């Protein structure tokens, strides 16, 4: 068979695989393996050393009645430092939320202050409350920032306010934003209303386990209003058009001021503050709450885990429940509220956790559903102090680490 006339139609030159002549880049920061090892060693050393050196040189002398300032509520590195400083085994930290911290009162109007007064000492009971922390967040706080609480007496406050609705319990499916989200369990158990993306969750986990990140947060929170230095230089004055008062300031200047303290005169707290008044002063009425089932509650489960963790560390834990403002609860719902409180107390007794359940305070000593006013704290401290369970617990000197 005769072959047809053929015409080659392919290109004459066939593209070959390109040689690797692609330039590296337009900089000289090209490290070889050895240089990378040196670089990483330097960075690692700095990351380990800086927080330690900082701790050694940064003045921090909390006196009696000290509490973490409101503005530093999320400075968990400082909280850890505060906890680490309670090295005298005779001192008793009180863990809890804003009820312990003292939302409406000055540092000398808190539960720890009045318990110290009852004890006739100035520093036996230590205010370790954090404003806005709830059991799910306290779990993270205790797990990662209160590791030095070992083999000592600890008082933990249980606030049943967190069980008054699925939203407060964080068990609702509706997306919610809440305080201290970086302290809650990021992956397990799943908190249905918490919708942070994967990056934020991993970043929160790293904050809690890498001291350098926690220190960076402290650095930002304590000196730069929770911002990085570059962002601080761009703080604007809120005007339109904005001006940037920090633009030409020395970025290191805020370090001179030291860790912020509570303002000498706090317009939001203390007997002279307009907020410091009975909850009924503005005509508020008792409310109906959407109580959650204790067995299904995320906050209660977290609270139990806090206790378990502390006891595993050899701490001798005493729980103070409430006192919740029962006057704030609608008459029809009070049995529910009391049943919930009793259920908690029963579980604690069953698990051999000393528990003090102070009587509800008079209505006019509450500022809201759970926070007492200054006189309320004084009365509460007296009642706790005089409780035989408390006295018995205090009398047991030895704590097995």
């Amino acid at each position, binding site marked *: 068979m005769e072959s047809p006339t053929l015409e080659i139609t392919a290109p004459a030159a066939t*593209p070959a695989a390109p040689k690797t002549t692609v330039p590296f880049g*337009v900089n*000289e920061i090209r490290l070889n393996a050895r240089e990378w090892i040196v670089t990483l060693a330097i*960075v690692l050393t700095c990351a380990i050393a800086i927080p330690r050196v900082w701790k050694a040189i940064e003045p921090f002398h909390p006196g009696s009645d000290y509490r973490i300032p409101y503005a530093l509520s999320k400075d968990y590195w400082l909280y850890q430092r505060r906890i680490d400083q309670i090295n005298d085994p005779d001192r008793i930290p009180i863990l809890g939320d804003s009820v312990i911290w003292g939302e409406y009162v000055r540092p000398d109007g808190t539960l720890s202050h009045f318990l110290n007064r009852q004890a006739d000492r100035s520093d036996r009971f230590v205010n370790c409350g954090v404003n806005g922390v709830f059991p799910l967040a306290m779990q993270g706080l205790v797990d990662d920032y209160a590791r030095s609480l070992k083999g000592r007496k600890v008082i933990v406050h249980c606030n049943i306010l967190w069980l008054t609705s699925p939203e407060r319990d964080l068990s609702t499916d509706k997306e919610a934003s809440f305080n201290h989200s970086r302290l809650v369990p990021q992956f397990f158990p799943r908190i249905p209303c918490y919708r942070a993306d994967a990056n934020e969750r991993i970043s929160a986990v790293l904050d809690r386990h890498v001291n350098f990140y926690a220190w960076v947060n402290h650095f930002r929170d304590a000196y730069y209003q929770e911002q*990085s230095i570059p962002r601080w230089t761009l703080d604007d004055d809120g005007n339109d058009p904005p001006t940037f008062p920090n633009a030409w300031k020395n970025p290191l200047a805020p370090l001179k001021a030291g860790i912020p303290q509570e303002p000498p005169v706090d317009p939001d707290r203390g007997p002279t503050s307009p907020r410091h008044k009975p909850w009924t002063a503005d005509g508020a009425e008792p409310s109906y709450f959407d109580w959650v089932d204790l067995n299904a509650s995320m906050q209660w489960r977290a609270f139990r885990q806090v206790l378990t963790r502390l006891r595993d560390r050899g701490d001798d834990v005493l729980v103070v429940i409430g006192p919740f403002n029962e006057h704030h609860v609608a008459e029809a719902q009070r049995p529910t509220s009391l049943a919930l409180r009793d259920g908690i107390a029963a579980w604690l007794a069953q698990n051999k956790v000393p528990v003090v359940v102070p009587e509800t305070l008079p209505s006019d000593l509450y500022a809201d559903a759970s926070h007492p006013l200054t006189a309320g704290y004084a009365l509460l401290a007296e009642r706790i102090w005089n409780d035989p369970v408390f006295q018995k617990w205090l009398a047991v000197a030895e704590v097995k680490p």
Partner: protein
Amino acid sequence: MLFYTWPFLIFMLVVLPGYFALRRTRFWILWLLAASYFFYAWWNPYYLLLVVYSTTLDYLLVALMDHCPRQESGEPLIARLLHGPVRNVPLAASQINNAGPPTHLVSPPESSNTQRRDPVLAAAFRISALLTAILAAVAAFGPVTLRPASLALATLVLFMAVGARLGSRGAWLVISIINNLALLLFFKYARFVEENLNQVLHFLHLAYRFPDPSKLMPHGWEYALPVGISFFTFQSMSYTIDFYLGKAPRERNILRFATFVCFFPQLMAGPIERARQMLPQFQKAPPFRLDDVTDGMSLFLVGLFKKLALANYLGIYVDRVYNNNPDGFDATTLVLATMAFAWQIFFDFSGYTDMARGLARMLGFNLILNFNNPYLASGLGDFWSRWHISLSTWFRDYLYIPLGGNRRGAFATYRNLFLTFLISGIWHGAAWTFAIWGLLHAAGVMLTRGLERSAFYRERVPLALKRAWVFLYVCFAWIFFRANSLSDAGTIVSRIFTAGWRSPQIPALMLALVCGIWIYQLTYESRFRPILRYAPLRVAMAAGMMLYIGLCSTSGQAFIYFQF
């Protein structure tokens, strides 16, 4: 999943060991492809369908193109439509001189109809015709939500049926280009076109209005710009064009081709790679080299620093000026914010590119250089050979040169430059501001082309002056690129020349950082460059950058070019 986030680190901690473990097996390419698809699906799983669709279609079109003769048979169009394409006879093995693209022969015109028909093209015709009928039926009688998409697909497969009947390489190329541009047009420009056309209709007092493109999405799926669409469509299109022109071989392995289209380091924002540069790299797994890993890490670190330490920081300042009413700002602030944006977009985009190149290098692949210190350019032409090089060369090779380049006289050259820059501007986004930005660069290049080639400019004008003028002109054009509207851009330009000059509000730290980078770049391009190679300095800079990122990184938006 942005490169600088923790999930991406975890992703890489899985992908890298898996890749190195599979390097000696035939599954390595599948691993890379799976990783790339996972990476893309992280953004929006639905839009992965778009990438797969685009990839599959271009792969098929090139395969079909490969069955067509390289030279047209000379038969009349009608005859080819009636009788089908000329059969494409592969060369005997002995006649192929190397492993390049398949070489085909044109059979003699006197062959019978049976011999003339290429079975693949004939099958393609039958399948396309059948699909056209099915899709047309769905478009006419199917669920309402599927009708627009079915109609579009029916049109496409109808073109394919015609292409199969014609048996012309050009027909397949046209289908590929139409398909890719249609995707871009619909997802990126449809709303812009619809709004402008409706304004014209309103102006003409006509009642008809074009529907919102979101109404055309099937099943009410969200109408949003798929991240990276401009990049992967251009990359895929470059393959079909290069194959048509005989500059790239046909890739027979669809896994390799799919990996080329969606290789995760450069999928979102380039660099836009060419098939002839990348596909050969996917032929076999690159050998593991420690230098590749350390080079990749070095590139990645620089990119990370550019993005987290510089671009995001500058972005806050730029946003506060550009996102507010520009009437309130004095000239100093507007000028500084514009210059800050110039650096922001450079750090943002080149930072992304550095990270992309670094990641690819860790895997053993080389991506092209995309930025070459553009703000040290001594002319606007020079600027475009240093800025977004992969896009500039793409437009040069696939638009400017096919239009005739500079070979058809001065008028045609300027027309081609004008069109290339205009289209390049519009490529960036569906807004008139981008078109104006492109036109400003077109005007700048056209006006200075002659000057820049003159001996006077090259030899007598001081380099610093040339660099300064280019930087200022580029900054001027950036005003239109960044402004939220044409009206804002006009106000900013007007106020720069009319409002008072007051004390600068830009942070000293920002100025120091930018000046530091500028000095580094100047040193890099000077005779003092060896100083930068001093090992302790390099180590100190790398450690300094890592610590700065750890302490001072600023959160911000995703990469600017993701929106393009």
